[in-house]
C-alpha cells in the first residue's frame, strides 16, 4: 500500500452535481444500469465510485456509494444498481427513478481501487454479484484504450439470470484479445454446465487466475464476506498483499 501510488483526481474539492437520468438498461430482473447526464462532470478512472444523495420532501436525506460502470465518457456517468429488497436507496434507484428525474451525486471518489491503461501488468479481476460493476469499467477501459494487458475475470453469481452485462462479456471474451471470462455459479448453474453450483474455491482462483510470479494486479470486489474469502485465498496462493486491491460493498461484516 505505497502512498505514492494513490491519486485519482481527488486532490480537489468534491462538490455535489445534479445528475439527470438519461437512459435505463435492464441488466437482470433486479438490477439496472442508470446512465446519468452530469453537465459539469470532471471525468474519472475505471474503478472509482460516486456518492449518491437522495432527499425526501420533508428534508430527510441519505447517501450511498455506487461504482461507475463505464470509463470516462464526457458528461455521462453510468451506474448499475442491484435492488436490495429491504433497502432504503436501491429500490428507489431501480424502480422509482425515471428518465428526466434529477438526483445528486458527488465524485469521483476512491483513488486506490483503479486500473490505469498505461499499466502493462496482467490483471486478475474477481467479482462477486454486483462487485462486477467497477471491474466492468476496467474491462471496458482496456478495450477503449487499446491496452494489451492480459485480463482475466472470474465472476461469481448466484444464477445465470443474475449475470450483469452477460451479452457484452460474451462478445468481449470473443473479440477483445487477451481477455478471459470465467463464471462460478453459487445457486444454479446453466444447463450442461460442467460443475455443480458452489462457492468460489482455491481451485477456481488457482485455475482461472494468474500465477503469483506473473505479479498480476488483483482487483477483488463484492460483498464483504466474499471479498474477505477471495483476498485470503490470493494471499495463501502467494500473491503479494500489496498487489491485491479490494472493494467491499458492505454492509454485512462479522
Amino acid at each position, binding site marked *: 500500500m505505497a502512498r505514492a501510488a494513490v491519486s485519482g483526481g481527488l486532490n480537489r474539492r468534491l462538490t455535489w452535481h445534479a445528475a439527470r437520468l438519461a437512459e435505463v438498461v435492464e441488466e437482470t430482473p433486479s438490477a439496472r444500469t442508470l446512465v446519468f447526464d452530469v453537465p459539469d462532470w470532471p471525468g474519472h478512472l475505471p474503478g472509482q465510485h460516486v456518492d449518491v444523495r437522495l432527499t425526501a420532501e420533508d428534508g430527510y436525506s441519505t447517501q450511498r456509494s455506487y461504482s461507475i460502470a463505464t470509463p470516462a465518457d464526457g458528461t455521462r456517468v453510468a451506474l448499475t444498481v442491484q435492488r436490495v429488497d429491504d433497502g432504503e436507496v436501491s429500490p*428507489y434507484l431501480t424502480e422509482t427513478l425515471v428518465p428526466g428525474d434529477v438526483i445528486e451525486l458527488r465524485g469521483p471518489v476512491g483513488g486506490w481501487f483503479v486500473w490505469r491503461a498505461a499499466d502493462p501488468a496482467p490483471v486478475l479481476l474477481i467479482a462477486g454479484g454486483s462487485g462486477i460493476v467497477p471491474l466492468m469499467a476496467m474491462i471496458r477501459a482496456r478495450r477503449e484504450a487499446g491496452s494489451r494487458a492480459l485480463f482475466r475475470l472470474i465472476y461469481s453469481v448466484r444464477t445465470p439470470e443474475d449475470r450483469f452485462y452477460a451479452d457484452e462479456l460474451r462478445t468481449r471474451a470473443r473479440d477483445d484479445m487477451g481477455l478471459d471470462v470465467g463464471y462460478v455459479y453459487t445457486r444454479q448453474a446453466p444447463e450442461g454446465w460442467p460443475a455443480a453450483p458452489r462457492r468460489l474455491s482455491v481451485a477456481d482462483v488457482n485455475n482461472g487466475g494468474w500465477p503469483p510470479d506473473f505479479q498480476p494486479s488483483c482487483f477483488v470486489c463484492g460483498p464483504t464476506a466474499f471479498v474477505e474469502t477471495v483476498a485470503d485465498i490470493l494471499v495463501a496462493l502467494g500473491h503479494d*498483499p500489496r498487489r*491485491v486491491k479490494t472493494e*467491499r460493498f*458492505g454492509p454485512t461484516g462479522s
Partner: protein
Amino acid sequence: MGGIVSPGFRGRRGAEGGGVKLPPGQYLTEDFPVLTAGPTPRVPTDTWEFVVVTEAGEKHRWSWAELMALPSEQPTVDLHCVTKWSKLGTSWQGVSLDVLLDGVDTAADYVMVHSYGGYTTNLPFEDLRNGQAWIAYKFDGEDLHPEHGGPARLLVPHLYLWKSAKWVRGLRLTDEDEPGFWESAGYHDYGDPWREQRYQGD
C-alpha cells in the same frame, strides 16, 4: 447546491437513528461493516509489537505481553464511517493512549499511525490524548477479530473510522503534518464526522 428533492423518496422513517442524533449524512446500522483497501493481515501476538518513535528518534516498544500487563479501560463508543454508516454503543477493551504516552518525551504536534500491511493515517497529536483514544484488543468481550483489526487497532471514535487504524503497529510523532493512505487519496486531513469532513476541502 443542496437537497434536490427526489419525488417519491421517503427514506426509512427512523432510519436516522430512531430519535438518536447522528452526524450529517450518516445512517444507522446494526451490522459491523468491514472496509479495507486490501487483504486482512493476520498478525500473531507472539511477534506483535507496538512502537512509538518520537520526533527526536527515541523509540518506545511494547510486546503483546507488556500491553496486556497495562491497565485497560472498557470504553463504549459510537462509530462513524465515512461510507455513511454509524454504529452506536459499541463496547471495547483496550489501553488508553494516555497510559502508553505517559513517559514519552515529546513536543510533537502530529502523529502518523502505521499498521501491519502498510496502512497509514495521520492525526493531530492532541486527538490521541486526554481519554480520546485507545489501543483496543477486545470487541464485545471477545478478542478482536482480524477483519476488524485484531489483534489490536487504534480506536479514535470522535473521528471517521479510517483514522482508527486496524492492525496498528506504531506511531511516529512528527512536527509536521503529512497525509496518510486515504488522506493522500483525497480524503479529509482531519475527518470530523459532525462537520462532515469526508473529502479534501470539506
